[in-house]
């Protein structure tokens, strides 16, 4: 008998790698393209997320509202129902990323693939159940674990910023050795990419992401095989799997190569062990087989429902654990008082609704032209980790920009036309007279007033008497806020020349989206005339 690897499946494998590369490049391109495009409106750069049925379902259940763009997710569902988890093997950019590193680790002998399987593949199903149970009670944790959110967020808030910092250092070197013309063109190119390079949790998110990559040192595509809740979800709905693994017993030499090198522990050998719900149709087994014994003929009988060893006990336990965990996520002081630093981007839904919809992907943080949108740490409570908040110390909300609202894939930030956006208050500015330069030193400043974008300006300059340490009195103009006009954009705080702790700062009070986080009762204004 001729011993030869299957040509057909090696071609299919090559096509699969091409497909993965194309989708990864597309994902990365859309990510890079998420910045001010030269006009007010940006195209649907967030479209990748809409093909993710897990995000669709989780936000649907958590918010009890369907977001129309997620209809695209149905195509993934149908695809998976008929063909199995091809989306994992051929499309998912995080899957490709993991596979690439697994490949590198394998080639460099850092990872030695093992023959024996284990039942850790069940973890991802438990995680999925944990997440979905939460959504029933409007606790939306899906964004933390969803592969697209994870990848996008990590790239935006950590990987790209790190590249940007490294690149900048490299350019600095070019100037030092006097190749400034090359430096100039590189700078212009890079500035036009508009990569936001300052993120508060950049290091932390980077460690997490690289940690997840390093898991591939233990098992190939570790994340996909043990952890990914989207993979679990697709595994559950893969039903028909019309391409069925078949091993020709006459050709098979029982070498175990297919099972050893299976990317996701679907165990193609022995044939009866094959788990269609774990198979991502990467065709590694059929192309690696030294005797071309493995094929995937089309057969239209449905698979048995989930061949996963999920014990009923553990299922119920996970669900109960999920329910028990919910109140822990809500142990946040923000239930008593609005958090002053919880300044949401304009168009953000009221906080409760917002948390039910935000998937923590980081699209808005990528689109923000000033780098002001940052992942929250504790400001929004445990369930709000990595949701976007404006940190005016870093960057402010650009007056004529509504990009964040346009790129939000779930409608957690409602899409706004630019003119609508300029009318939304996201907070209010306050002067700290203890540190403000004119109020203390009698020295002129006016920087906050100069930058205030509203017309008329929300910051007024008023002559103020200031007593200096030597007893003399000066009367500089000093800033006073008109809270009716202030929209809380924070440019005053960003630009304040008091460099360490800006003497003017924005807090969330007065935000349009909240009924309760208000300074004055509106009723009083109207009734003034009665008295």
């Amino acid at each position, binding site marked *: 008998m001729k011993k030869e690897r299957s040509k057909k499946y090696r071609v299919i494998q090559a096509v699969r790698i091409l497909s993965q590369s194309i989708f990864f490049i597309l994902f990365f391109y859309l990510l890079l393209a998420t910045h001010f495009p*030269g006009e007010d409106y940006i195209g649907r750069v967030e479209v990748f997320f809409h093909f993710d049925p897990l995000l669709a379902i989780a936000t649907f259940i958590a918010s009890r509202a369907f977001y129309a763009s997620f209809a695209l997710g149905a195509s993934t569902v149908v695809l998976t129902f008929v063909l199995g988890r091809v989306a994992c093997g051929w499309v998912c950019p995080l899957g490709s990323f993991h596979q690439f590193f697994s490949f590198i680790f394998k080639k460099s002998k850092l990872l030695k693939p093992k023959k024996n399987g284990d039942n850790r593949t069940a973890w991802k199903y438990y995680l999925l159940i944990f997440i979905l149970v939460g959504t029933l009670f409007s606790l939306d944790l899906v964004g933390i674990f969803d592969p697209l959110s994870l990848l996008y967020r990590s790239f935006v808030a950590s990987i790209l910023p790190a590249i940007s910092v490294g690149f900048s250092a490299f350019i*600095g070197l070019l100037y030092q050795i006097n190749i400034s013309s090359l430096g100039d063109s590189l*700078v212009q190119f890079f500035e036009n990419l508009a990569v936001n390079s300052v993120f508060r949790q950049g290091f932390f998110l980077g460690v997490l992401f690289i940690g997840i990559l390093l898991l591939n040192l233990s098992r190939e595509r570790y994340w996909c095989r043990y952890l990914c809740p989207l993979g679990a979800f697709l595994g559950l709905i893969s039903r028909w799997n019309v391409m069925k693994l078949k091993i020709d017993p006459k050709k098979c030499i029982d070498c175990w190569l297919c099972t050893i090198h299976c990317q996701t522990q679907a165990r193609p050998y022995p044939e009866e062990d094959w788990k269609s719900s774990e198979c991502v149709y990467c065709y590694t087994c059929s192309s690696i087989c030294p005797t071309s014994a493995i094929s995937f003929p089309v057969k239209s009988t449905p698979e048995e429902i989930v061949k996963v060893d999920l014990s009923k006990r553990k299922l119920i336990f996970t669900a109960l654990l999920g329910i028990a965990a919910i109140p822990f996520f809500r142990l946040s002081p923000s239930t008593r008082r609005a958090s002053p630093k919880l300044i949401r981007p304009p168009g953000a839904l009221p906080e409760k609704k917002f948390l039910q919809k935000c998937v923590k992907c980081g699209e808005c943080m990528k689109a923000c032209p000033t780098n002001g949108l940052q992942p929250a740490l504790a400001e929004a409570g445990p369930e709000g980790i990595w949701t976007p908040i404006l940190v005016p110390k870093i960057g402010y909300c*650009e007056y004529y920009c509504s990009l964040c609202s346009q790129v939000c894939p779930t409608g957690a930030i409602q899409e706004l036309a630019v003119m609508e956006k300029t009318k939304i208050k996201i907070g209010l500015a306050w002067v700290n007279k203890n540190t403000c330069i004119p109020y203390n030193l009698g020295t002129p*400043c*006016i920087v906050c007033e*100069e*930058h205030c974008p509203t*017309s008329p300006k929300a910051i007024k300059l008023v002559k103020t008497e200031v007593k200096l340490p030597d007893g003399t009195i000066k009367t500089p103009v000093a800033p006073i806020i008109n809270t009716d006009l202030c929209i809380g954009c924070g440019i005053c705080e960003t630009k304040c*020349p008091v460099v360490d702790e800006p003497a003017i700062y924005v807090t969330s009070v007065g935000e349009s989206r909240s009924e309760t986080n208000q300074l004055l009762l509106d009723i009083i204004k109207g009734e003034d005339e009665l008295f």
Partner: protein
Amino acid sequence: MKRRDFIKDLALGSLLLKVNPSLLAQDKNAPDLAWIQGDSPSLITREAISSLGGMNRFVSRGDVVVVKPNIGWDRTPKLAACTNPEVVKTLVELCLAAGAKEVKVMDNPCNPARRTYVRSGISEAAKEAGAKVLLPNPHRLKKMALNGEWLKEWRVYTDFVEADKIINVPIAKTHSLSRLTMGMKNWLGAVGGNRNQLHQKLDQAMIDLASFFKPCLTVLDAYRILIRNGPQGGRVSDTKLHKTVVAGVDYVAVDTAGATFFDLGPQELPYLRVAHQKGFGETDLEKLIIEKRTL
């Protein structure tokens, strides 16, 4: 060339080197200020330059020229927060026609440069005319000796210092500290560092910066001026159509002329008064030859 001529030229040349370059550009027949009014921003700009003796007077063949408009804010031209794009475009065209090797257009804005460059219309207009439009490059910031009265040194974009000629193209606007922002205030957009601290002695900072950069020509865009809520405005009603440009070598005189559009004079603008005292320019418009015309 005879040896005698060579020595003569050399002596003359070395004498002239010590003189302010703007004096070199002085033309006995040309007016001090061209003050042109008309419906087309581009035509009045063209007319102003030709009244001053043409761009050849300022730009020589092979020069690298930096044109410095005000591109400070994310505002469209009708809001008059940035220099009129047509004026900038015309100047770039004139520089290239005069034989400039390269014309760079740049500013260090207050809002993100990628937005202000586009939304002000200046990026597109200047590129159309053949200019190189440059986003501010932090690697080109260098601490330099300004030797000013107050600013001894500051971080400056070297593009301006390395250029053969600098042309300042400000827009006339109100400002709550210097009262008006025109040519001399425009230089805050050529520097980096913590610029916002310059406001603590803004008038002096403006004088120090203007006398450091020494533009060979200042063209004040007063086509649409900002009369309220400066320096950003925000509503068309904050602006006033004035349809004028004022151009000249003497930047103090240009700003003084611009101040008249707001009914202000050197007595209300300390920076003009001090600049005049220091000998940087003239604030008495009576003493100047002004070519005033309406197209």
